[in-house]
């Protein structure tokens, strides 16, 4: 089966050739590929900055780079990873590709707007790369004033303009998703028959729409203050730096839910498929996605406990932050209950999903530590915080992204990846990740501050462990790049539904035709009707693993 050409059938990849057919496409599936290539590029740029950081931190002294350079490294790492990888990743790649298919539509509501979103993203990325090339930014990805607005001598304006522009890419994607999900579902596709992937992207889109504009204005004010020497954030002239923090975190806290909700949506697809069971508590999982999005807008002050915010406000934000953990916990309980008495198989996507559940639990629980005012006083701005959010961003979100890419790869390309290499990569990533970030919880608890390129010598052992883990993690990330690209030419040909999964996207050929469906589907079944599939049939026709 290896290397044999696919029988000539027209689908979205071969319907037209040439650069123009890609750069001027309005097909949501092709746009998903444009994003896939772009976000992968930015992921490795962000990874490059991380590599330099972890190399510097091998020794307690500042011997690899100067302090100012180090400040630029962690800033650029954060900006690149958050705005140009994590936020677009699952929504712009998997969401774009799958949402129309999952609801039985031919495309998103506004295909040209979808293409515009990608171009806007690229334009923002170019501004940010230009800022990096021109010497970088050293304010931290959080751009706190008045350092960013008055005192920093680096390319702040250029960077914030880049992020400002890219924000509109998010906004338009969110707009497109919301309208599509409301208005373009196939006959019979009621809200409670939707795959949970769609529910989680709907919730994510709420955040895109209502949060991102506030980030835009906060960054615009910083840029204007810098360029015109205004005094909006200058305490000496009556300005309040906390205004910036309120505006910034009003978006940036919900932004972390932008980064995790789509991943949760992926997990909600993987767990039932590889347990051959319906999702336990479908409505609870669906509603908790929306609850996370809504309550997530009420907790932003927990980033400001020690910034000068009033203690009263701190208490309110702390309480609300405890509340927002509840819907996340509900999801973990429901996924676990889905696994219970399921018929589990350990294909690569499932390895990522299982890893997600464990690592997200750790990340989420440590978030509660941070939400506790008394503890946060001690661990704020330490490596404890860094470990917490990397457990969510990397241990959970990136793993969900990789799990999703693997799961839907046969649908997107018509090819199977190498299962053996995929499982190995998943394992290497899991080990590398934990070795990198678990020591950082200890470091933070012991008091090592974040954003410092030097540290007391007694912290070296843990730092070396962390950097060693990072090198393993790097290997784990490079592997999929290699075997996925290899599979495009040499992978086993995949049929319509190699995983025997439920969902409209699996009822169409792999790769799908441009309009997704030959005939508009009529939906009559609930989602995740795995108990309707005979157990033996679940194993018949499984893909031939290379």
């Amino acid at each position, binding site marked *: 089966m290896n290397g044999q050409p696919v029988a000539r059938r027209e689908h979205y990849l071969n319907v037209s050739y040439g650069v123009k057919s890609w750069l001027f496409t309005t097909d949501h599936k092709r746009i998903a590929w444009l994003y896939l290539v772009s976000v992968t590029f930015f992921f490795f740029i962000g990874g490059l900055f991380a590599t330099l950081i972890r190399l510097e931190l091998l020794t307690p002294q500042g011997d690899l780079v100067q302090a100012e350079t180090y400040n630029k490294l962690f800033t650029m790492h954060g900006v690149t990873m958050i705005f140009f990888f994590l936020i677009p990743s699952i929504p712009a790649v998997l969401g774009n590709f799958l949402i129309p298919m999952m609801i039985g539509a031919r495309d998103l509501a506004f295909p040209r707007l979808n293409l515009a979103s990608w171009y806007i993203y690229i334009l923002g990325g170019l501004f940010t790369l230009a800022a990096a090339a021109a010497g970088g930014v050293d304010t931290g990805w959080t751009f706190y004033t008045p350092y960013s607005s008055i005192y920093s001598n680096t390319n702040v304006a250029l960077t914030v303009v880049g992020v400002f522009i890219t924000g509109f890419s998010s906004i338009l994607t969110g707009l497109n998703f919301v309208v599509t999900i409301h208005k*373009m579902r196939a006959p019979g596709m009621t809200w409670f028959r939707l795959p949970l992937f769609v529910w989680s992207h709907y919730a994510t889109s709420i955040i895109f729409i209502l949060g991102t504009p*506030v980030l835009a204005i906060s960054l615009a*004010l910083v840029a204007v203050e810098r360029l*015109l020497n205004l005094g909006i954030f200058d305490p000496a002239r009556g300005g309040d730096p906390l205004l910036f923090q309120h505006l910034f975190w009003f978006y940036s806290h919900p932004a972390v839910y932008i980064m995790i909700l789509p991943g949760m949506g992926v997990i909600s697809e993987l767990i039932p498929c590889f347990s051959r069971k319906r999702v336990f508590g479908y409505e609870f999982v669906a509603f908790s996605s929306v609850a996370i999005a809504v309550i997530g807008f009420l907790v932003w002050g927990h980033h400001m406990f020690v910034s000068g915010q009033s203690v009263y406000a701190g208490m309110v934000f702390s309480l609300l932050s405890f509340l927002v953990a509840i819907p996340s916990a509900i999801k973990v309980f429901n996924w676990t209950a889905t696994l219970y008495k399921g018929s589990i198989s350990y294909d690569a996507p499932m390895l990522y999903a299982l890893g997600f559940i464990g690592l997200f639990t750790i990340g989420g629980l440590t978030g509660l530590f941070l939400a506790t005012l008394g503890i946060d006083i001690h661990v704020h701005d330490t490596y404890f915080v860094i470990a917490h959010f990397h457990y969510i961003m990397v241990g959970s979100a990136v793993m969900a992204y990789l799990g999703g890419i693997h799961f839907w790869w046969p649908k997107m390309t018509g090819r199977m990846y190498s299962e053996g290499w995929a499982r190995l990569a998943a394992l290497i990533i899991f080990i590398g990740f934990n070795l990198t970030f678990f020591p950082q919880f200890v470091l933070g608890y012991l008091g090592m501050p974040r954003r410092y390129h030097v540290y007391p010598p007694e912290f070296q052992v843990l730092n070396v462990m962390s950097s060693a883990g990072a090198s393993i993690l790097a290997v784990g990330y490079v592997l999929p790049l290699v075997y996925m690209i290899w599979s495009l030419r040499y992978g086993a040909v995949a049929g319509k539904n190699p995983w025997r999964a439920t969902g409209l996207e699996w009822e169409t050929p792999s790769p799908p035709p441009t309009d997704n469906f030959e005939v508009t589907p009529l939906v009559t079944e609930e989602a995740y009707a795995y108990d309707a599939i005979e157990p033996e049939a679940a194993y018949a026709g499984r893909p031939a693993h290379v």
Partner: protein
Amino acid sequence: MSKAEAVRAHQFDDSGQQHEASWIGMWVFLATEIMFFGGMFMGYILYRSLYPAAFANASNHLDVWLGGINTAVLICSSFTMASAVHSAAAGKRRTLVSCLLLTMALGLVFLGIKFSEYYVKFVEHLVPGISFVYEQRFAGPAEIFFSFYFAMTGMHALHMIIGIGLLTYLVVNSLRGRFSPSYHTPVEMIGLYWHFVDIVWIFLFPLLYLVGRHL
């Protein structure tokens, strides 16, 4: 098939679905605009609560007559815009074009008055970052007031300019006979946008021009 008939993009099943999608889509976009302008309103509210005296003092430097006339101008333009949509729905092409042109003209009047106000502020040395002189007692907070004045009215003016551009597009297409009772979605959508920009000014006028006028 005449140009005036409903155009249906391939991803939609029928023109009703397309119209609904456009309508909801434009409201979602306006929600983002509420939050975008809202961020600046947030900053304004914060500083007004901190420096009520300075803000009142600074606000009295604005010309309440010009602000009030501009408010009336925009309200008129909303009326003519609503009439334009009404004409499009009724298939009255000439009235549609007239209403659109009137709306544009009123928008240009607004911008003319606005920029004349900006010029006066420049002459009076009340432009932060470029030329700002104020009595010592209120200097810092007054500069903040004027920073928000220029930022908010400037962003509003930018939206007006974009709106006038969109109206030009509508005029051109109306003259080409592209709209009809069964298809005039762009007129409706741009109408929504125009009314929204009017609403922003409805809040800007009292918050910027009418602070502490009774003092």
